[in-house]
C-alpha cells in the first residue's frame, strides 16, 4: 500500500466519526447483514477505513453526489452489495487525497459542471434528483449528450467516475473500498489466494472455500 494512502487512512480515524451515524443509517439492514455473514475476518482490519466515507478530499455536498453517482453505477439490492455497501465513496475520497491527487481538479470541474447541468435540466443538483433522473443524467454523460461540459468532457467525467467506482468495488479493501469484501462476494471472487490445487482448477463449481483473503489478513496470518 502506498504510504501516502496509509497516512490518509490514519488521519481518517480521527475525522470520520462525525459522518458515521448518517452513513450507517443509509445502509439497509438486509445488505449490512449479508455482508457481515460472509465476513469472518474483517474486524479491526477495516476499522480505520469504515464509517465516514469521506473527509480526506470531498466536501459534504460533493461526497453526496459521488456517493449517489457510484450507487447508480453499481446499485445495491438485497443480497447484492452495491457501491454504498462497498464504500466506494471512501475509496475515491482516499485516492483523490493520495495516488490520484493530480485528478483533484478534474473532479472539481466535473462535479461543478454536473451540478450546472442538473440545475439547468431539473432545477436541482444531482444529489437531490430521483434515482430515475440520476440514471437519465448518467446516460446523457456517457453518450456525451450534455451541453454544460467543457473540461472535463461529459464522457471523460463519466469514464473516470465509472473506472474509479469499479476500482472501489473490486480492489483490495486496504484501499478503503470493497468494504467487507462486498465486491468480491458479489461476483464470487475468493480474494488473494496464494494457491489453487489441481482439483480447484478442474472444478465446475463456484469456489467457496473460506476464508476470502485480503492483503492485510494475508500478512497478519503470515506474521502471526
Amino acid at each position, binding site marked *: 500500500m502506498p504510504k501516502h494512502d496509509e497516512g490518509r487512512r490514519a488521519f481518517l480515524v480521527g475525522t470520520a466519526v462525525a459522518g458515521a451515524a448518517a452513513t450507517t443509517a443509509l445502509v439497509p439492514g438486509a445488505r449490512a447483514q449479508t455482508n457481515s455473514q460472509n465476513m469472518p475476518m474483517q474486524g479491526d482490519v477495516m476499522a480505520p477505513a469504515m464509517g465516514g466515507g469521506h473527509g480526506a478530499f470531498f466536501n459534504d455536498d460533493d461526497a453526496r453526489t459521488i456517493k449517489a453517482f457510484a450507487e447508480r453505477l453499481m446499485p445495491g439490492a438485497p443480497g447484492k452489495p452495491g457501491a454504498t455497501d462497498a464504500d466506494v465513496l471512501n475509496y475515491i475520497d482516499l485516492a483523490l487525497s493520495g495516488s490520484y491527487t493530480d485528478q483533484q481538479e478534474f473532479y472539481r470541474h466535473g462535479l461543478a459542471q454536473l451540478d450546472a447541468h442538473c440545475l439547468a435540466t431539473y432545477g436541482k443538483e444531482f444529489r437531490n434528483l430521483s434515482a430515475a433522473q440520476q440514471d437519465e443524467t448518467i446516460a446523457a454523460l456517457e453518450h456525451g449528450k450534455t451541453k454544460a461540459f467543457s473540461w472535463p468532457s461529459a464522457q471523460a467525467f463519466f469514464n473516470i467516475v465509472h473506472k474509479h467506482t*469499479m*476500482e472501489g*468495488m473490486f*480492489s483490495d479493501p486496504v484501499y478503503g473500498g470493497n468494504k467487507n469484501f462486498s465486491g468480491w462476494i458479489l461476483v464470487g471472487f475468493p480474494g488473494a489466494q*496464494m494457491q489453487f490445487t489441481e482439483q480447484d482448477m*478442474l472444478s465446475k463449481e463456484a469456489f467457496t472455500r473460506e476464508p476470502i483473503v485480503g492483503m492485510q489478513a494475508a500478512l497478519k496470518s503470515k506474521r502471526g
Partner: protein
Amino acid sequence: MTIEKTDVVIVGVGAAGGILAAELGKAGIKVIGLERGPRLKTVDFEAHDELRFFQRQDLRPDPKRMPVTWRPNPGATAHPIPSQNNGNEAGGGTVHYGALSWRFHEDDFRVRSATMERYGKATLPEDSSVIDWPLSYKDLEPYYERAEYELGVSGKAGNLKGQKFEGGNVFEAPRQREYPLKPLLIDQVGVNFTGAAKKLGLHPFSSPHAIVSEPYNDRPGCTYCGFCQAFGCHVGAKSSILVTKLPEADATGNFKLITGAMCYRVNSDNSGKVTGVSYYGPGGDDNTIEAEIVILSPFIYDNVRLLLLSKTEKFPNGLANSSGHLGRHIMAHIGARAFAAFDDRHVNVYMGPSAQKNSIDDYNADNFDHTNLGFIRGAQISAGPAGLEGGPLGTAMSMTPPPGVPRWGAAFRDFYAKYYTRHTALTGQTENLPYPDQMIDLDPHVRDAWGLPAPRMTYDWRRPNERARVEFIQGKMVQIGQAMGAPLVWTAPFGPGSPGAHHQGGTRMGSNPKESVVNKYSQSWDIPNLFIMGSSTHPTMSGFNPTLTIQALAYMTADAIVNRYRKNPGSLL
C-alpha cells in the same frame, strides 16, 4: 558527474540485456548494466494487489513521467498512450509478462519467400515492407533450446525431430529436444477450450510458459494463484530475468548494475565507432560510461529514440541510420476478442497461469490455406481472462458486456455477478505486417521527466489485409465459443487502429544494409561495436509472443561476441 570505464555497457537489463549480462560476464568480460527502474525481489511481490499491479501498472513505465505518444497518421496530433506493455525495472517486461514462450515457425523467418512461393507475389500487400529474416529457424534453434533449458519453460513437444505428437503443438517447427518441464496444469477454461477445438477438428495444446511447473533450478513450481500477468511472481516460479539470469550475472563478479539510470545518449567519435553512453542518475546527476562495446536493449521505443538523440555531424540522421530505415516498419499484435459465458458451469477464469492458457495454432502463420482469403498470415488463438489476468477489477475494466447489457446499473451488476466466474475470453493474437510508414520518431511537443522528447508512434493497423485477417480470426473464435456449448457468445468491437500488444520493429535486421539497420547478430551495419537488441530488430512479427525469440537472439549475439568479436573486433559477417 562520474566517468567509468568498462568492457561492455548494456542499456536496459531485461529479456535480452539480462542474458547478455550473464553470458558476457561468465566469459570474463566486465559489464555495466544501466536500468532506469529499480531492482525488485521476489519478496516484493507478496501483495496480490490488482489495483497496484494491473490497474495502476506499477511494474510498467509511468506514462506521465515516460510518455510514449501515438497518432494514427501524420496529419493527426499525437497523444500519450495510456499504458505501456514493457517493464520498468531490472528484468524488464519478463517480471510482469504472461510468460508465453514460443519458438517462431519456420515460415515466420521467411514470410516474403514463403508467401511468394505458395501464393505468388501479388498476395503481398503492395504498400507493405515484408522481408525475410537474415537467419532461419535452424540457425536459431540451438539458442531456443538453450533459452528453454536455462530459463525454465513448461510445455509439451508437438514436433520432435519431425515426429508429431497430439497434445503438443503439431504446427510447431521441429525441435531436437522435449521441453525441460511438463505443461502447467489445465483448468476448467482449458478443458472447455480443448474440448471445443477438438470437436472442430483443430489441434489444441497447453501454451508453453516460462513458468516452472515443478521445482527447477532451486525455484519452486507454480502455485496457480492467478496473480501472474501484470504481477511479479510471489514464489519466483515465473522464469523472469530477475530470478534467472541476473543472479547468474551477479555470480560472475564481472557485472555491475546501476539502477535509476536514464541513458540519454550513445557517444561516438569521428572514427565511426561508439565510445560509450551518458546517463542521468537517480538524483539527476550526469554521468558517462566509456566502453569498448555498447549494447542497447531497452524496449523498442528507447532503442529508436536513443539512436535518434545521439546524432552527430558524422551521423546526422541518428546513429546506425545510413539506411534511413531507423524507426520504420513497426508492428503490433492486433487483438481480436470474443467471449463465451455459461449457465450450467463455473470455469473460474481467475485461477492458474493467467495469460493465454491453452491455444490453437491452426490459424496462425501459413498453417492453413490462404487461397482467395484476401490476406496472408494469421493468429494464435487462446482462452483466458479478458485482461490476461482474471481478477474482478481487471475483468470489469477489460470485458466488453454482450449486446443488450449496459456498462453500468442493475443490469450490468446482475450480469457481472452471475458471469464473472462463468465466462472466458478468447483472444486472437493477430500478426501485423510491417509497413514503412508505421513508425517511431521524436515527438516535437511532448517531453519526458528528464526533458527528452517522447518517442512518437505513427500507426494505424486498419488496412485491407490486416482487417481481413483479424475478421477471419474473430469468426473462428466465435465458432470455438459456440462449440464449447456456451449459450452466450459475443465479440468485442475492434479499436481505433492504435497499436496493440508486443510492439516490434524500428531497428529491423536484414541481409541488405540498404534496407535494414542491423545484421543477424543485431550488430549495427554502420557501427560494428554497437549492438541493438530486442524485438525492435524483428523484420516480421509472427502471431506468437516475441520474448523467447528475443532471448534466443540474445544468446546468439552473446556467443558471437565471446567467441568471435572479442578476438577480431569488427563486422561479424
